[in-house]
C-alpha cells in the first residue's frame, strides 16, 4: 500500500451512507425458500406492509458504533459498581426501608428485562425488513445486558440483606408478581406487530419515562449509587428503544391506511396494560422511597399529560387518538398509590417486602401533594390503622383478594368518579363469570376472550389447591391453605413481608449502621446510638 503513491484512502462514509450499507446492502433475497415460509408470523395480524425499505432508523446506529459505545457504558458501570462495593455502599443508602424498594425492583422489573430480551429475539427473527430486524437484535442484546447488570449490581445487597436470593422463584410464584409476569407473557404471545407496538411504543415511549426519570433520580437522592448507575446505564439504551417505538408507529401508519385501526386498538390496550403495571411504581415513588423527588401525581402530569400530550398531538395527523381511558388515569392520579399501599399493608404477610404506615410528617407531605384526595379518603384510614397498631392488634386482611382477569391486580381500585366506591366489573363468557378491575381491562378481555380465559390467576390457583409444595396433604386436620401457599411462594415469616419494624433487615440495619431503619419512625432498637443530648 505504501509503495503505491497514487492510492488514496477510501473516503470515510457518512453516518447515513454507513447505515444504508448495513441495513440495505447486507440483506439478500432468498432463492431456494419462499419468503412467506421464512417469515411465517408476519401476515396473520392483518398489518399490511408494502415496502420494508421505507423503514428509516433515525438513530442510524451502525455495528461499530454499537459495540464501541456499549462497551464504554459497561466499563463505566463496572467501575462504579466496584467503587460501590469497596466503599460499603450498601450501608450508605438512606435506611433499611429503602431496601424494600430494591426487592420490588429485583423481583418485579429485572425479570421483565429478560422477558423483553426474549420478545426482541423473536422480532429479530420474524421481521422481513433488515432495518427493523437489526434494531430488534440490538435491543434484544440491550435487554439481556440490563437484566444481567441489574442482577449483578443488586447481588451485592443480597450479601447483607434478606429476601433477594430467591428472586427468580418468587417472580414465578409470589401472587402479585404475576402482574408484571403476565404483562410480558401477554405481549410475547401476541404477533410481532402487536408486540412492538405494545413494548416499544405504548410501554417504552409513552410510559417508561416515569420509571427512568423520577424513580432513578429518587434512587440517586437516597444514596443508592449502584442502582442509579445501572439504571442510567440501561436508560442510555432506552432513548434508542423509545425512538424505535415512535418509528414503528409512523412506519405502520404510513404503509397502509388499513393499519390505523389496528394500531389504535393496540395503543389503547397496551397503554392501559402498561398503566396498570406502573401502579407498582406509583407506590414505590410515593410510599417506599424514604426521601422523595416528586409525587406520582406530579410525575403523571409531566410525563403523561404534558409529554404524552405532545406525542398524541403529533400523531393526530395520522388519525391516531390519545389512548382510550387516558382520562381515567388522570382521575386516578391522586388515588392510585394510596389505594395500592393500603392493599400491600393489609396483605403484608403475603408479599416479599416489608411495609409500614406513613408517619405524621409523611401524611403532611401527602396532604400537600394530594390536596383533593388524601385528607378526605386516605388519612382517616391510616390513622385508624396506626391506632390499631398501637393497641397491639394491627389490621391484616384475612382472605385473598378477587383478582382482575386481565391485569391480575386485586380489584382494589375505586370508581373513576367516586373514590368511596370500589370499582368492579364482570362479564359472562361461555357460562362462566369473569371479574375486572376496570372498564379498560374488561374491554381487553372482550376483544380476545379466548386468550384471557387461560390466565393463571394466583388466588384462584391457591383456592384450587395448585400452589402447595410436594408432599403437602390438604386433607390433614391441621392443614392451613394460606400458610402452605406462602411456603410455596418462598415467603418466610419475619424475613419476607410483615411490618418493617419486626423484620430481620431492620434489626441488622440498626445493629450495623447505628442509624434508624426507617428515618420517618425513629429507632426500632437500642442499637441506634444517641447522637443528640435530647
Amino acid at each position, binding site marked *: 500500500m505504501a509503495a503505491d503513491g497514487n492510492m488514496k484512502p477510501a473516503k470515510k462514509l457518512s453516518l447515513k451512507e454507513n447505515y444504508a450499507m448495513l441495513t440495505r446492502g447486507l440483506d439478500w433475497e432468498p432463492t431456494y425458500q419462499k419468503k412467506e415460509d421464512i417469515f411465517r408470523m408476519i401476515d396473520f395480524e392483518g398489518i399490511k406492509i408494502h415496502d420494508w425499505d421505507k423503514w428509516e432508523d433515525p438513530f442510524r446506529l451502525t455495528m461499530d458504533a454499537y459495540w464501541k459505545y456499549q462497551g464504554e457504558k459497561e466499563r463505566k458501570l463496572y467501575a462504579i459498581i466496584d467503587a460501590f462495593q469497596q466503599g460499603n455502599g450498601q450501608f450508605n443508602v438512606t435506611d433499611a426501608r429503602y431496601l424494600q424498594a430494591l426487592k420490588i425492583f429485583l423481583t418485579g422489573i429485572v425479570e421483565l428485562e429478560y422477558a423483553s430480551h426474549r420478545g426482541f429475539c423473536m422480532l429479530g427473527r420474524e421481521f422481513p425488513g433488515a432495518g427493523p430486524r437489526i434494531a430488534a437484535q440490538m435491543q434484544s442484546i440491550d435487554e439481556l445486558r440490563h437484566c444481567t447488570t441489574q442482577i449483578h449490581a443488586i447481588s451485592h445487597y443480597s450479601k447483607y440483606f434478606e429476601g433477594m436470593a430467591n428472586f427468580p422463584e418468587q417472580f414465578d410464584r409470589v401472587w402479585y408478581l404475576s402482574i408484571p409476569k403476565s404483562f410480558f407473557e401477554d405481549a410475547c404471545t401476541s404477533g410481532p406487530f402487536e408486540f412492538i407496538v405494545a413494548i416499544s411504543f405504548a410501554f417504552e415511549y409513552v410510559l417508561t419515562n416515569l420509571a*427512568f426519570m423520577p424513580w432513578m433520580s429518587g434512587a440517586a437522592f437516597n444514596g443508592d449509587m449502584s442502582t442509579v448507575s445501572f439504571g*442510567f446505564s440501561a436508560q442510555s439504551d432506552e432513548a434508542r428503544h423509545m425512538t424505535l417505538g415512535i418509528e414503528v408507529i409512523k412506519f405502520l401508519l404510513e404503509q397502509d391506511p388499513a393499519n390505523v385501526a389496528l394500531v389504535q386498538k393496540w395503543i389503547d390496550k397496551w397503554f392501559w396494560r402498561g398503566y396498570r403495571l406502573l401502579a407498582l411504581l406509583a407506590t414505590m415513588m410515593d410510599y417506599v422511597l424514604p426521601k422523595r423527588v416528586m409525587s406520582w401525581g406530579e410525575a403523571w402530569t409531566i410525563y403523561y399529560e404534558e409529554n404524552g400530550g*405532545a406525542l398524541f398531538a*403529533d400523531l393526530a395527523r395520522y388519525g391516531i387518538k390519545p389512548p382510550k381511558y387516558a382520562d381515567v388515569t388522570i382521575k386516578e392520579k391522586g388515588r392510585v398509590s394510596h389505594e395500592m399501599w393500603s392493599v400491600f399493608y393489609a396483605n403484608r404477610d403475603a408479599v416479599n417486602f416489608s411495609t409500614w404506615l406513613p408517619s405524621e410528617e409523611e401524611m403532611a407531605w401527602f396532604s400537600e401533594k394530594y390536596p383533593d384526595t388524601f385528607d378526605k379518603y386516605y388519612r382517616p384510614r391510616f390513622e385508624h390503622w396506626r391506632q390499631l397498631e398501637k393497641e397491639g392488634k394491627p389490621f391484616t386482611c384475612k382472605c385473598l383478594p378477587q383478582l382482575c382477569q386481565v391485569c391480575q391486580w386485586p380489584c382494589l381500585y375505586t370508581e373513576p368518579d367516586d373514590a368511596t366506591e370500589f370499582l368492579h366489573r364482570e362479564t359472562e363468557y361461555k357460562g362462566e363469570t369473569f371479574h375486572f378491575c376496570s372498564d379498560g381491562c374488561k374491554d381487553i378481555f372482550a376483544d380476545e376472550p379466548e386468550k384471557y380465559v387461560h390466565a393463571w390467576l394466583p388466588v384462584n390457583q391457591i383456592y384450587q389447591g395448585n400452589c402447595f409444595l410436594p408432599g403437602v396433604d390438604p386433607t390433614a386436620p391441621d392443614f392451613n391453605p394460606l400458610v402452605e401457599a406462602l411456603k410455596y411462594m418462598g415467603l418466610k415469616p419475619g424475613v419476607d413481608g410483615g411490618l418493617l419494624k419486626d423484620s430481620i433487615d431492620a434489626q441488622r440495619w440498626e445493629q450495623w449502621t447505628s442509624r434508624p431503619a426507617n428515618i420517618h419512625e425513629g429507632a426500632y432498637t437500642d442499637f441506634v446510638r444517641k447522637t443528640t443530648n435530647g
Partner: protein
Amino acid sequence: MATTSTQPVFIAFQDNNDTRPIIDAIMADNPNAKLNEMPALVKIDCPGRLVVRRDTISELAGREFDLREIYINLISLAGEVDETDEEFVLEWKTS
C-alpha cells in the same frame, strides 16, 4: 425546516462532567430551552424543536466530539429524532 409546533420536546442527560459541555451547548443553541435539574439528571425542555450541534459541543469541550458520544450519558428524549454527523434534532412536526 422550521416546525410550527410548540408542543414540548425534551432531552435528558446524566448530570456529570462529561455532559457539562453538551448541556451548555444545547442551552446556547436553543434560546427557548428550559433547564430542569433533578438529583443526578438534567431534563431540557423546549417548545417544538431542539437541536444538539456537534460544532458547539466540540468548541465547549475543547476537542473533536463525535455526536454519537451523547449515547453514553443520554437518559431519555421526546420528539421525532433526526441524526446526522453534525446535528441531532428532536422535533414535533405538527402543532
